């Protein structure tokens, strides 16, 4: 996991160091684009408060299990809080409700029952109804807790995937709350980052994502008026590791997989000790890819992640990680291969979904598809060519 977690103070720029200098009290929100080091900084602030202020009772929350597992890989040194203090929001909520308000557990489990009608399931009303139930359950559990201060400090990564009300409930648990997020990476249409009463700090520059990948990401999801584009604030050094981003059309899904494996073979040597990601739109495709890989030399060095993640999967010596776009949130890889590009077509948030998948890549990005890909994706990857007017008529 070389180059994933910062190991020296010199790795931080002035703005990033300001996050470490935030006071050990109050509520703070860190805004920043992908690759600006939000997750790293959140983890460093947690470690710093743990060591300096004696905040041993820390709660570190993420939205997906995969990200929780990824963050646990940054806690290898045992000097700081324990890996099990990093939890997903949902596993924490279940544990919190069952401890202090067990009679609400059935209502909590009902939140996971999906309506067969996808339109109803994804509707705004349904989301608001579920959010209301959850927040009421959290309120009831909090009211029954023996004390109002349950933790020394709470940290929430990818806060854009929670609602304002959920963040407010979490903020009541500790005197120190630090959250981090980026609206452009929100996949669920939530508004957690617009929570009131938090002092904000914004990181503008990012170092992780290569310029070519920034170009593609900015075309996929252009910044809103007045906001920064990824490319404008990119400090990635192209001199040793020039970035690339390409799109490939294949006849079949298996052809996509074959092309990815060919490339991975080179990348395992080109990027020693680095993580390489294969990102797929659905869990079904993960199973499909897994069986494709079964007899190959890659199988033993590949981790397959479900949305809930697998404990320690990022701490193993497996450099290749296969995961869904949703599970990939917050993670980062030296090279990313997105297969099944033709599947990225569901109506809501498809630009945010693509943006999230693309910005997991640091240096190398490839997108593979068979059949049709959404025009905005094809356009984002397009490069200028030497086509002439004559060519239009030939």
């Amino acid at each position, binding site marked *: 996991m070389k180059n994933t977690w910062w190991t020296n103070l010199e790795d931080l720029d002035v703005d990033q160091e300001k996050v470490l200098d935030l006071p050990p009290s109050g509520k703070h929100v860190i805004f920043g684009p992908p690759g600006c080091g939000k997750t790293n900084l959140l983890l460093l602030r947690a470690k710093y408060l743990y060591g300096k202020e004696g905040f041993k009772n820390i709660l570190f929350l993420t939205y997906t299990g995969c990200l929780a597992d990824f963050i646990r890989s940054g806690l290898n040194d045992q000097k700081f809080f324990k890996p099990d203090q990093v939890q997903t929001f949902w596993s924490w909520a279940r544990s919190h409700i069952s401890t202090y308000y067990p009679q609400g557990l059935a209502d909590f489990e009902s939140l996971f029952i999906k309506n067969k009608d996808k339109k109803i399931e994804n509707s705004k009303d349904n989301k608001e109804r579920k959010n209301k139930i959850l927040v009421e359950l959290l309120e009831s559990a909090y009211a029954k807790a023996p004390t109002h201060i349950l933790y020394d400090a709470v940290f929430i990564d990818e806060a854009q995937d929670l609602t304002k009300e959920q963040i407010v409930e979490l903020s009541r648990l500790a005197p120190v709350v630090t959250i981090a997020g980026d609206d452009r990476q929100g996949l669920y249409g939530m508004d957690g980052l617009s929570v009131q009463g938090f002092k904000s700090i914004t990181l503008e520059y990012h170092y992780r994502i290569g310029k070519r990948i920034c170009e593609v990401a900015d075309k996929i999801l252009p910044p809103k008026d007045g906001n920064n584009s990824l490319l404008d604030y990119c400090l990635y050094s192209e*001199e040793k590791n020039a970035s690339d981003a390409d799109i490939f059309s294949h006849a079949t899904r298996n052809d996509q997989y074959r092309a990815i494996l060919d490339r991975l073979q080179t990348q395992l040597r*080109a990027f020693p000790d680095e993580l390489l990601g294969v990102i797929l739109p659905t869990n079904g495709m993960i199973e499909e890819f897994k069986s494709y890989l079964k007899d190959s030399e890659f199988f033993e060095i590949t981790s397959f992640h479900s949305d809930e993640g697998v404990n320690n999967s990022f701490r193993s010596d497996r450099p290749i990680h296969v995961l869904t776009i949703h599970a990939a949130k917050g993670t980062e890889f030296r090279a990313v291969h997105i297969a099944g590009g033709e599947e990225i077509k569901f109506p809501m948030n498809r630009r945010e979904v693509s943006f999230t998948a693309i910005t997991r890549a640091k240096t190398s990005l490839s997108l593979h598809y068979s059949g049709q890909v959404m025009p905005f994706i094809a356009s984002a990857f397009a490069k200028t060519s030497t086509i002439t007017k004559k060519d239009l008529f030939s």
Partner: protein
Amino acid sequence: MKWDNYRWVEISRSELLSFIFSRDRSHRTSSPPKSRRLLAGFEGYHSNSEERPEVLVIEDEDAEDLMAWLYAFAADFMPLSMHFQVVLASDFDAIMRTDSFSNPIFEPVWASMILGEFMMRGRGSKVLKDFYISWIETSCSYSLLAALQVYGDNKLIYDTFIGRLRRLKANEQLGFPELRLETLEVAWKVCIDLPDRAYQFEREDEFLFVQRLFHLLESSANRQFSHEFLDLLYSSYFKSDSVERRLTGFDQVVRKCSDQNLSDQTEVGFYLGAAAFLVGRGTSHLGLIDRPASSFPSAYLWFSILAGLCGKNSWDPRWFELIRRITPFLRSKRLEGDKPADLCWVEFSAMERSRESLSFAKDIVRIFPSSLVLELIPNVHFQIRLARESADSERSTTGGSPTKGSNRELILQIESLLKRLTKGLDTQSSQIPEQPELKLITEEKSNRKKRSSD
């Protein structure tokens, strides 16, 4: 040279014993020596009866005889290096003619060279994962660096140094590292000849630098190498900013090396080392050499030299950490010879030549069970591991086989033979002159026998 300030006094063999046994030496003369059969060097200008010499200079042709004599009459006080620094007269003459050397050594190159040597010995970059600082003193390059620091680029001293390393390598009883000294020699010559030692590598100059090193290599090795490969290193593959494309270039170099069945270790090693270095534009892709370097281990040396010359901007964290740990070692006073040695060359040489190999191994192993520090040339040490423990421990720490694999087996055989020797089953005699048994004891023994038979 610190010996400039010594008082030199000619002494006799018996007088030497009085030094060893701390007898009264008030009768000793302090007149200038008429010959140099045995010279003792004393610190300071005023003599007294209590003082002991710091250095002993022995005439080359007398050395073996003197050592045999000492082992016979003062065996418990041997090796002599425990008491004095012992120097051959020929070494003494060479050293006294050497001016003190003040040219700076380009530390990153030599620190990197030491790493390269260990990778070459261990046949892999994995050696560096568990690198121990204590290994440094077993490095031939480290020893040579000491010689350079003490005596400068002195051909006489250099030839003596190389000659003695060769003798150590040829001795089957010792666990000399498995490496081709000839390969190391070429790399050493290049490093000694580096015209601009304080050169700090600029990022855009890496190809120019590979070229400079290539020409230095050609002149040091005194051979014309194929420029076809050099052109490949200059191809668009290596100029690309994409590491994947540079890797494709590396694979082409490897393929070409094997297709053309090149056998010149130095030449192929250079291309492979330089190509791997260019892939990472630094040390990050060292592991790429592991497979091809099994046939061309000198690739590690050239990779390391390039890393040393390019400086810290080209080092990945692991390389940086290792150089940071090694460099203070190169700067320390250890190199100036204040550290005592287990055996000086005179003694080692005499022991090795005058006895049969079996007795020689027995003596060495008895005195220094696992390794010994040899004073190869005065004030230049080399730590050599003896087979008994080194083969196992080094193999386990390096993951490779830096010492001769058969040494342990050999030592077991030697031990078994030695047991037979001590039981009197073997009639093989040592060349050490034996002191005649005292008559009194013989008589007492015979009386005991008589009594028991009564």
